[in-house]
């Protein structure tokens, strides 16, 4: 029995079908990377799972409870969101709160923990991402990489069943990418179930247990990194891989 079961997820913006009847099941402890050309619904898939978009149809089963993506019940919406946490491309830390307060926020308002307990948990998670020395810094005092690490701590502190990461390194200076990738890798090794959209192919190769190639709102290929990168079956996937390798080649030749 898988941890998360998504059935028939569809989403369109106007007449543009972004997700077309996507089925996806994720096992506990999986690190699933979604790759694919831009505009194929990678981010939309993640955002739909967290109901930041309103899909037209589909269901998700998480924690043995089936919730429709089109649910109007705010109780069900909150339940789904409590089981999933999102890490955003733009970090989206609360600007008026310090690093520590950012991590404590959800623990206190959503999990209703006492301040002391929330602080304990927050400290533990900030330490894991290596931010213990920046507790009372506001986001504006932190670099992009540091902000993203705080954001990861904020998400992990909520102990989600499924961690969603939407291009967590795309807004970072090249120098800062690795510190975030290291943090994600650590979270993966600790057994967190992660669904991740990224363009860091080498990272995907090393850390992901499974890769999904999404194109035009459909899952075109699904397999282990080895299967995807070394013996791609679909022509489109081959094309895509050639293209990204070509880009790399061009870069190197300059």
């Amino acid at each position, binding site marked *: 029995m898988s941890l998360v079961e998504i059935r028939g997820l569809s989403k369109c913006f106007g007449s543009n079908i972004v997700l077309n009847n996507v089925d996806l099941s994720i096992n506990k402890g999986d690190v699933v990377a979604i790759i694919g050309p831009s505009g194929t619904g990678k981010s939309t898939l993640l955002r739909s799972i967290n109901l930041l978009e309103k899909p037209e149809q589909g269901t998700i089963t998480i924690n043995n409870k089936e919730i429709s993506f089109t649910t109007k019940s*705010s109780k069900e919406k909150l339940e789904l*969101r409590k089981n999933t946490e*999102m890490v955003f491309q733009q970090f*989206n830390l*609360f600007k008026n709160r310090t690093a520590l307060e950012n991590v404590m926020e959800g623990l206190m*308002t959503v999990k209703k923990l006492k301040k002391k307990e929330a602080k304990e948990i927050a400290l533990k998670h900030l330490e894991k991402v290596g931010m213990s020395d920046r507790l009372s*810094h506001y986001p504006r*005092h932190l670099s992009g990489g540091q902000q993203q690490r705080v954001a990861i701590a904020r998400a992990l502190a909520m102990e989600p069943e499924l961690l969603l990461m939407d291009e967590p390194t795309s807004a970072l200076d090249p120098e800062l990418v690795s510190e975030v990738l290291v943090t994600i890798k650590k979270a993966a090794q600790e057994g967190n179930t992660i669904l991740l959209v990224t363009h860091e192919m080498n990272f995907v190769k090393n850390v992901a247990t499974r890769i999904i190639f999404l194109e035009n709102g459909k899952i075109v290929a699904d397999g282990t990194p080895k299967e995807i990168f070394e013996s791609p079956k679909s022509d489109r996937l081959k094309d895509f891989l050639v293209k990204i390798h070509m880009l790399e080649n061009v870069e190197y030749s300059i």
Partner: protein
Amino acid sequence: MSKIFDWQLVFTQIPAVLKYLPVTLELTAIAMIIGWIVGLLIAIVKIHNVPILKQISTAFVSVIRGTPIIVQLYLTYFGIPIALKYINYYYGTSYNVNGIPPIIFAIVALGLNQSAFDSETIRAAILSVEKGQVEAAKSLGMNGIQIFKRVIVPQAVTVAIPSLGNSLIGLVKGTSLAFTCSVVEITAQGKILAGNSYRYFEVYCSLAIIYFVLTIAIERVFTYIEKKMSVPEDVETEKKGRLPKKEGLSSELG
């Protein structure tokens, strides 16, 4: 020959004028609160595009902004009794049309005037909070009220404070028109005093001093609040955090 300009009187009559300062302050405080509450409601209606209410709000703001405050004071002063007469006539009630304390007219007119101007300030301030932070809060599982209270309001307030302070200063000076509704506040009191002494210029000098001091005080308070609420420029604890390091370094060096 009597003095052409009795500059001593300018100062000696200030206490007599100040007797009615509480009325000015009462008008200001109540109109300010009405302005904020109604302004917030209008802002929310406009942001959420509530049908019908939005059109009413837009028309209201447009009319209030398009007419002078003195005309609005006359309109409430004469309009409310006429409305009461109609109510008495159609519903058989017997409200005392002449029994309304004059300050009510001034409060209603000034409060509604404030609300129209403040609503735009508040709307802009709420919209200035990044959508990403709201999404992050949703993702944490916070409900609408929690998001509004803990994410939007604290940040919107810091944005709105300077403009709200400005509008409050305008309001303090606007209360000087309340005499048109036969409310005796400091300006009206000054006129009464001058009516006895024929020292009009001196009284207006006293009034100028009083309003000026009042305005400066309000400015100061708002500057203080603004500073208190905004995210500090520098990291306070950074210094504290660095101190031990420096000590360590110096001891190493020594």
